[in-house]
């Protein structure tokens, strides 16, 4: 089972943090900081796996990948295969790439909602659900369309940026 998915930048700022077991927000922040401190001390060219029993409890492992300014982190337990989890990060990044075309950190920052849509199609309640980027994208597009449709009912733009001409 997957315990958590995190994306944070090389300064330690979390961009996405999803925990599949209930935790208080303070504990979540603590874990994010803990993971960052472990990751930031890793040298280059070493393995992508870590054992982090001290943070997440017994039988917890972590896989991470460093892309440009972001760390992609998956925390899981003994019922997942390590190399498969590494592949999963790959799947996630590829999907994001197709979604945003040459995704960079800013895309992730400003598309918080979409990020979660993508993630929710891949990991469902801690289980891996879908590993083909095309299928994931199909679902994500459908959902975005539905959202847009349900929002277009309102005529007056309600957000400040809408008033200012939008972006």
């Amino acid at each position, binding site marked *: 089972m997957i315990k958590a998915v995190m994306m944070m930048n090389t300064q330690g700022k*979390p*961009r996405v943090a999803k925990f599949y077991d209930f935790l208080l927000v303070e504990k979540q922040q603590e874990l994010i900081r803990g993971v960052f401190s472990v990751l930031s001390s890793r040298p280059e060219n070493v393995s992508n796996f870590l054992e982090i029993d001290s943070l997440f409890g017994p039988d917890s492992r972590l896989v991470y990948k460093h892309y440009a300014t972001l760390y992609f982190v998956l925390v899981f337990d003994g019922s997942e295969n390590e190399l*498969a989890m590494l592949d999963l990060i790959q799947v996630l990044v590829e999907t994001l790439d197709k979604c945003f075309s040459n995704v960079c950190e800013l895309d992730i920052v*400003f598309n918080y909602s979409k990020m979660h849509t993508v993630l929710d199609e891949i990991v469902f309640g801690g289980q891996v659900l879908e590993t083909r980027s095309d299928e994931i994208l199909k679902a994500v597009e459908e959902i975005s369309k539905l959202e847009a449709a*349900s929002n277009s009912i309102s005529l007056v733009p309600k957000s400040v*940026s809408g008033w200012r001409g939008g972006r």
Partner: protein
Amino acid sequence: MASSNSLMDSLFQRSLEDLIKGLRLGESTFISKSLEEIRREIKLTDLSTKSVALQKLSYLAALHGVDMTWAAFHAVEVVSSSRFAHKRIGYHAIAQSFSDQTPVLLLITNQLRKDLNSSNEYEVSLALECLARIGTDDLARDLTSEVFTLLGSSKALVRKKAIGVVLRVFDKYPDAVKVCFKRLVENLESSDPQLLSAVVGVFCELTAKDPRSYLPLAPEFYKILVDSRNNWVLIKVLKIFAKLASIEPRLAKKVADPVCEHMRKQNVGKSLLFECIRTVFSSLSDQEVALKLAVVKIREFLMDDDPNLKYLGLHALSIVAPKHLWAVLENKEAVVKAMSDEDPNVKREALHLLMAMVNEDNVTEISRILMNYALKSDPLFCNEIIGSILVACSRDSYEIIVDFDWYLSLLSEMARVPNCQRGKEIEHQLIDIGTRVKDARLELVRVSRALLIDPALLGNQYLHPILSAAAWASGEYVEFSKAPYEIAEALLQPRTCLLPHSIRAIYIHSAFKVLVFSLGVYFSAQEPTSSSLVQESTSSGSSAVNGFTYDSISSLVSMIELGLCSLSGTIDVEVQERAKNILGFIGIIKHEIAEKATFQDSETEVHRAIAFMEDVFSEELGPVSSTAQEKVPLPEGLELNENLEGLQEICREVLEPMAESDYSSDKVSFSVAKLRIRDQEEASSSLPPPLESSSLLAEHRKRHGLYYLSSQKSDDHKDRDGNDDNTSNEYPPANEISVDSFKSKKKLSKPRPVVVKLDEGDEPKTKPDASSSNDEPLSRAIQTALMGKGKGKEKERVKENHEINLDTENIEQSSRREKKKEKNGERSSKRSSRRQKDKEASVTKPVEVPDLLL
């Protein structure tokens, strides 16, 4: 944007995007400002405003640690909107922030039901995801029928997610099994790999918790193992078989072949290959062919340049190391090479493997290699190395060590490693070896002397525990020392002021023992009738204590006196008291030393005093069992538990962290007159007052009744063991010594010395894990479901009655066999208690093992 018109602000709500932009400009005040806005906006009736506010709040909660539990009711409101966008935001917030404690949780039941029945598959998905993450018992119960319907949905997306949610529903509401299990199992025959992958994923989790109940499904899993081409599916099925095969060995034989097939494939994915290897190592290691093949394949992993594969290769080897050490030995070079790898994980795995290879013959060689690495490594790894050497060597009371002289010198070498922070463990072992191994005491004293004399070591605070052990050993076994004067001088050197007071006290006390010993030798040497005594003392042990001349003894005494004078006024009471004790003693005997030449009478006060002190120190201190405290009977009239429960609750928080953080929980601290037994397990579970006799307690109570709570004399008090049949007040001997004699089978220059071992209580007791009982209803439900299924199905399996009985017998036999195979580890208590329960369950409802296996 910062200077926006306030009128505009109040008319228009900030969207999530605005919030993010604002945060990038300036954080902390912006957060509190936004929170205020959010609180205002979220209370408005307009659902759109509410949902945007909720969305912003979710963002702040996830990434900035802002609490959002107060908005639970608003999340419920938002989710009730008919608009998809609102629903998304609402469900997202709910999944993120609701827990079992959320009061409004039940309000979403109907909404969930509506959405689960929706025709829009994405609405259904939202509801399913929400249920999967926050489902409680009530929600699971109320929505079981909806989940059942969805398990048969024609839309793949919905079906997949319904399968995923089953895991949570089963966990929270086991009766759901009756309804949903059949459909779940039907999906095992699906041809859609994604559906299949979802189902086996669920079964993988379920099997991990309770393998026995899913044994009947083995044939289905077997089919998938053989037929499927999808790596994700295969990996999960392998994990399932790993669990099943470890409780059902016949399955192992059957499964070994397909697993080997997968391993032999040309372009097999590394993840699948690794999972095959791991399955073989953990559960199929009795299958020779599979094992050999797996070892060949793991070699490829070890030789690969990819650090991930190297790490995983080493990790897999450590799984197989306990049972099949040859696999590790074959790859010894790779392991040693990995010790100098850049990656700390790889190094750590290599260290574990090296320690697994350690035995009597190679312990010196391996320790040498490891110490070299330790000197070259960073502090963290250096201490890991030292720590693991210490653990391996001290296991089973130093079973591995043949040459204790070498080991003691190794310990002192460790003490001199610059980064060493394992002082406490080394201290413990030094003292432990001193008490258990008589023949090593000479070397111990020698090693201790070297440590004590060096003034540089006193400055290193990590070494203080080791120095304290050295001081204690030097005092306790001073008869082995060649030059007591040197020891006393080292113990009282000026730099000892750097030591903490508790250790300083030990130093002083050891000096006292040295003094008493020297005086004893001096005086006994003078008596003409006891010249044999002198010869005895010179021939005992293997060190010669030269008789003291008047000059040497008086210089010893005056040196000690000088060293201690300054301490008689220190602030620390322990140090001061001990210093004063010695000074007082010296005061008594001093004048006698000079006159001794003329005085022949051995009955002087001085002689008696010295003889008395020698007596005090003469009793040998041995290792103490960790169960010794329990065996001491309570004196009559002593009530341990009364008045202490309240205290225990208050102190529980204080004591429990202490118990966990202490490194060695059966550490014994020695003092001369009393053996004070400190056992952390006992300390954390109750607070017995020191054993005073009942009369003293009663007296004290009379005088200070104000401080005692009202007492009720309970007639049937028991101590923790329920030993209430002891009438004698005598303390049984605190040590239970059984001496193990070791016959050395090899040619050695010196036979292994005798190591005192205790019958029980050598290892610290660990509390047996409370066996989880909340899996029981689920296991029962699954077994019932499978039983019912088996009776109805008449396809490939032909079931005969006698086979069923045979099967239960075999299952019982195999589980009994496993119990015997189990090592006497601490974990056996949990497993055996669970197995008892499972055995009972299997006896009452025989779990059918299909004839596939026969």
